[in-house]
C-alpha cells in the first residue's frame, strides 16, 4: 500500500464535491488542513467527520488535506474513506445512516418509462436527481466513471444509496461489465438497490453469475428484499442471444438496448432514419415480450433537440418499447408524454374496462365488447394503458365515477 491516498474532484465547474489527500505519518496525530467554500458555516462539521473517520479506521498519525467545494456529508465521508483505503488495507466500512425515506421496494412490473443516468463519481448530479421524477435513477459505475476512479465511485454510490433521497424513483445501479462488475455488487447490494443494470451483456451465463453473487451477498447480509436485473444488450452477439438472456433468471425484469456500442460493433454509422438498428430494436422487443418482461430502448443523446427526442419516442413506442434511458432531466417530461397512450388507445382501453366491470357486476364470467370476446390479458393491458394515461395526466383517476366512459 502507498502511504498517501487521494480521492475526489476539484477544479473549475466542480461543485458539491471535494478532494481529500491523506498522508500517513509516524507521529504528530491527525493534522487537518481544510480549505472549504463553506468553511465559515461547516468547518466544525467537516473537521469532526474527518477525525471520526480517522479514529474509525484506526489511523493515529496523518496529515489530511481537504479542498471542499460545498460537498455534502455523504460525499465528504466517501472521499475520506476512499483516500484512507488507498493507504491502508481494511475490510471495515464507514457506513452512514440509511435514511428511512430510502427503504422502499419496487415491483417487477412497475413502470420503467424513464431512467435517468447519473455519473457515479459526480455528486452534484445526484443531489437533486429525484425531484425530476423519472421512474428510475441509475447510479452509473460503468462508462461514466474513469478507470482510475472506479473505487472511489463505488463508495460514493454506496453512500448515495444510503443518504440521498430519490423521492420514490426506482434505485438502479449500472455495474461494470462482468466479471469486474461482480465486485461492484458488494458495494451496492447491502444498501437497498432495486435494480442492477448489467452492461454489454452477451450471455445468460453473465446474468446467472450476477444473480448468484447477489444471492450470496444477500445471504451474508441477511437481505430479503428482491433485487431485479436489467441486462443491456450492446453488441451483435448480445442481440442474437437476447431471448436466452431475457429468460436467464426470474429476476430479469426488463431488457434494454444500447445502440451506440451496438452500431459500432456492427461497423455501421448511426443515421437519423435508424435502419441500421431496426433489426436489433425489434429483436429486443420480441425477446422481451416473449419472456414476459419489459423492452427498454436506448438513450437519445442530443439533449438540446426536444423535437427529435419526441419523434424518437414515438417511433420507439410504435416498435413496442415501454421506455428509454435519459441522460438529461429535461428529457423526462417528453419521454413520459409520448410513451403515454394516445387518445385512441385510451378510448379503446376505457371501453374494454367498462365492459369488464359490467360483466363483473352482472356476475358474467366472460367479457365481451360488441361481438368480440375479451381475454383476461387484454383486460390487464387495458388497465395498464389507463394507469399510464392517468400518470401522464391524460385521464382522471376517477374516470369511471365521473363519466362512466
Amino acid at each position, binding site marked *: 500500500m502507498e502511504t498517501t491516498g487521494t480521492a475526489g474532484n476539484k477544479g473549475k465547474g466542480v461543485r458539491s464535491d471535494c478532494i481529500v489527500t491523506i498522508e500517513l505519518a509516524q507521529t504528530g496525530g491527525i493534522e487537518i*488542513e481544510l480549505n472549504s467554500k*463553506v468553511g465559515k*458555516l*461547516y*468547518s466544525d462539521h467537516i473537521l469532526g467527520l474527518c477525525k471520526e473517520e480517522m479514529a474509525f479506521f484506526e489511523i493515529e498519525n496523518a496529515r489530511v488535506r481537504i479542498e471542499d467545494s*460545498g460537498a455534502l456529508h455523504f460525499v465528504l465521508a466517501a472521499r475520506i474513506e476512499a483516500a484512507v483505503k488507498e493507504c491502508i488495507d481494511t475490510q471495515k466500512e464507514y457506513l452512514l445512516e440509511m*435514511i428511512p425515506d430510502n427503504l422502499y421496494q419496487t415491483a417487477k412490473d412497475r413502470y420503467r418509462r424513464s431512467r435517468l443516468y447519473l455519473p457515479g463519481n459526480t455528486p452534484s448530479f445526484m443531489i*437533486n436527481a429525484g425531484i*425530476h421524477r423519472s421512474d428510475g435513477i441509475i447510479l452509473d459505475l460503468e462508462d461514466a466513471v474513469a478507470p482510475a476512479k472506479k473505487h472511489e465511485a463505488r463508495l460514493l454510490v454506496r453512500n448515495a444509496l444510503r443518504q440521498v433521497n430519490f423521492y420514490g424513483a426506482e434505485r438502479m445501479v449500472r455495474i461494470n461489465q462482468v466479471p469486474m462488475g461482480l465486485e461492484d455488487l458488494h458495494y451496492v447490494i447491502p444498501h437497498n438497490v432495486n435494480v442492477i443494470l448489467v452492461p454489454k451483456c452477451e450471455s445468460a451465463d453473465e446474468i446467472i453469475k450476477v444473480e448468484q453473487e447477489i444471492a450470496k451477498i444477500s445471504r451474508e447480509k441477511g437481505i430479503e428484499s428482491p433485487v431485479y436485473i436489467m441486462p443491456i444488450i450492446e453488441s451483435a452477439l448480445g442481440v442474437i442471444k437476447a431471448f436466452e438472456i431475457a429468460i436467464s433468471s426470474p429476476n430479469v425484469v426488463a431488457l434494454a438496448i444500447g445502440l451506440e456500442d451496438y452500431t459500432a460493433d456492427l461497423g455501421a454509422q448511426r443515421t437519423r432514419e435508424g435502419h441500421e438498428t431496426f433489426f436489433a430494436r425489434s429483436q429486443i422487443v420480441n425477446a422481451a415480450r416473449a419472456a414476459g418482461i419489459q423492452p427498454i430502448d436506448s438513450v437519445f443523446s442530443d439533449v438540446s433537440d426536444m423535437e427529435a427526442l419526441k419523434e424518437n419516442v414515438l417511433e420507439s413506442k410504435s416498435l413496442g418499447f415501454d421506455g428509454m434511458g435519459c441522460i438529461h*432531466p429535461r428529457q423526462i417530461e417528453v419521454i413520459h408524454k409520448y410513451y403515454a397512450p394516445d387518445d385512441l388507445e385510451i378510448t379503446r382501453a376505457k371501453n374494454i374496462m367498462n365492459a369488464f366491470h359490467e360483466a363483473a357486476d352482472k356476475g358474467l364470467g366472460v367479457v365481451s365488447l360488441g361481438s368480440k370476446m375479451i381475454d383476461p390479458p387484454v383486460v390487464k393491458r387495458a388497465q395498464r394503458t389507463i394507469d399510464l394515461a392517468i400518470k401522464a395526466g391524460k385521464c382522471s383517476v376517477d374516470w369511471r365515477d365521473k363519466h362512466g366512459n
Partner: protein
Amino acid sequence: MGTEFVRNAAGRIVPTEINGKEIIPFKGIGKHIPDGRKYGPPIHSSVHYPPDGNKVVPSLKEAMIQCGLRDGMTISSHHHLRNGDLISNEIFRIASELGIKDLVWFPSASFPCHEPIIEYLKDGTIDHIEGSMNGPLGRFTSQGKMKGTGVLRSHGGRYQAVQDGEVQIDIAIIAAPTSDPFGNANGLYGPSACGGLGYALADYQYAHRIIIVTDNLVRFPCLPMQIVGNYVDCVVAVDKIGIPEKIVSGTTRITTSPDRLFLAELTAGFCDEAGLIHDGFSFQTGAGGTSLAIGTYFHKILKERGIKARFASGGSTQYIVKMLEDGCLDYILDAQTFDLDSVRSMRENPNHTDLSIFNCYDYHGKGNFTTMMDVVILGATEVDVNFNGNVVTHSDGYLLHGIGGWQNALFGRNVIIPIPLFRDRIPVIRDEVTTLCGPGELIDVIVTERGIAINPLRTDLIEKVKDSDLPIKTIRELKEEAEKICGKPSPPEFEEKTIAAIKWVDGTVIDIVRQIREQVSSK
C-alpha cells in the same frame, strides 16, 4: 466610540448614527411618515450658460474642476451601462490624480467592473460608498477596510433619499449613449446604447451640478429627451463610455440548468393554480436565469389560453419583448433594459416605454406603480422561518450584493421568491436571516424545488391551492428538510464594527452589516 445602539421595530440592533449623521431606526411598514418639504437644488440662471447652447467641455477632468470638485463631496453615477461602464472608475482616477479626498460615491449600483474603485477607497479619495457594494467591493467592505460606513438603499430608496435631502448630490456624472451639446440625452442610440436612463432621474432633478459624458455627440436636438438639457451644466465627449458587449448583460440568457428550470416551472404552476395568471394581469420578473424562465412559462400559459397580460414592469429582456410582439402583453414599462432586443423594442415600439424609478418605486411619492403589480418574482440569498428576506449578505456573513429594486417590489400584490432549498451545502431557509432587508409580512410565497411555503398571512392563497397537486409545505418543514440534507450550519462570526447600514424604502434603518471575522483556514 460613543455610538449608541437601539432595537428597531424589526427587532434588529442598529446604531443611532451612521457616518456622523443621525438616523431613524425602522419603525414598521408604513409607520414612518416624514413631514417638511422636499430638498431643492440651488437656483441657477441662464446668464451663466452659453446662449448658443453649447455646453461642451474638452475633458471630464475640466468638467469636474469647472463644477467645483473638492474634498468631501458626494459624486453620483449610474448603472445603466452595467458591467460595461467605463466612466465611474475614470471619475475617481481623475479625483485621485487631483488629490481630492473623502468623497462619497453615490452610484445607483455597482458591478464587478468597479473593482478598481478599491484603489481609491484605499488611497483616501473615497471615504465610503452609498449605493450597492457588489462582489469585490462588498468583500473589501466586509473586511472592514472602507473608511466610512457603507449605506445600501433600494432603487426607490435612492430616489427617496435624494428627494428628501438625505443625500445631497454635489456633482452627478451621467454617462449618456447619445447627447447634444445642450445636454439633452438618451440611451437609445449610439455605440453604447443601453435603452432607458431612468436611474439618473433623481440626480438631474436634484443634484447641484450635472455633467453628461457621451460617446455619441449629435447636433441639437437630441430626441427623445430622456434627460432634459436644461438641468445640465456641461457635456463631455469621449471615445467610449462603455463596452457594448458588457452593457448587454449576461444575465439575460435563460437558464439551462434542469434544476432551475424545474423551479421556474413549479413557480409558474403555482401562479396558475392560485389564479394569479388571468386576462389583464401584470407581472415583474427579474433578469436572472430562473426569473426569465418563469416569464417564458407565463408566455406559454397566456398563449395557450389566448389571454393577455396588461403590463410587465422592471427590467426588460428579449423574452418579455417576444411576449409583447407576440400579442400576449400590452405594455412594457421598462426601468432597466437588459439586452439589445429590448433596446430596439424601446426605440421602435410605443408600447415599450422607459420608466423612471420615481414612477415605479418611490415610496415618498403620491403612490407608485408597484402596488398595482399582480405577480412579482424576486430572488433572495436567504429567507427565514418568518418569511423575512435577505438579498445583500450571504449566509457566511459577507456583503456581496446590492438591494436593487427588491425592497420596492415587495409591495406587489403577490410576492413570490423561487429559490433552491440549498446552494452548494448552504440552506437558504434559516431561523433568522443574517441581514434583514425585507420584513416577512411582505413576502408571500417561497418556492423551492422540494416544496412551496405560503406565508400564513395569505390565507387566500392557501385556500386557492389547497386541493392542487402542488407540494405545499410549511416553511419550517422546508427548513428542516434542508438541514437534514446539509446539516445545520454554524452562525457566521462578526466583529463589532458596523460596515454598512441597510435602509428601508422610507429612509429608516432596517438593519446593519458588521465586519466579518475572518478565520484561519487550517487547524
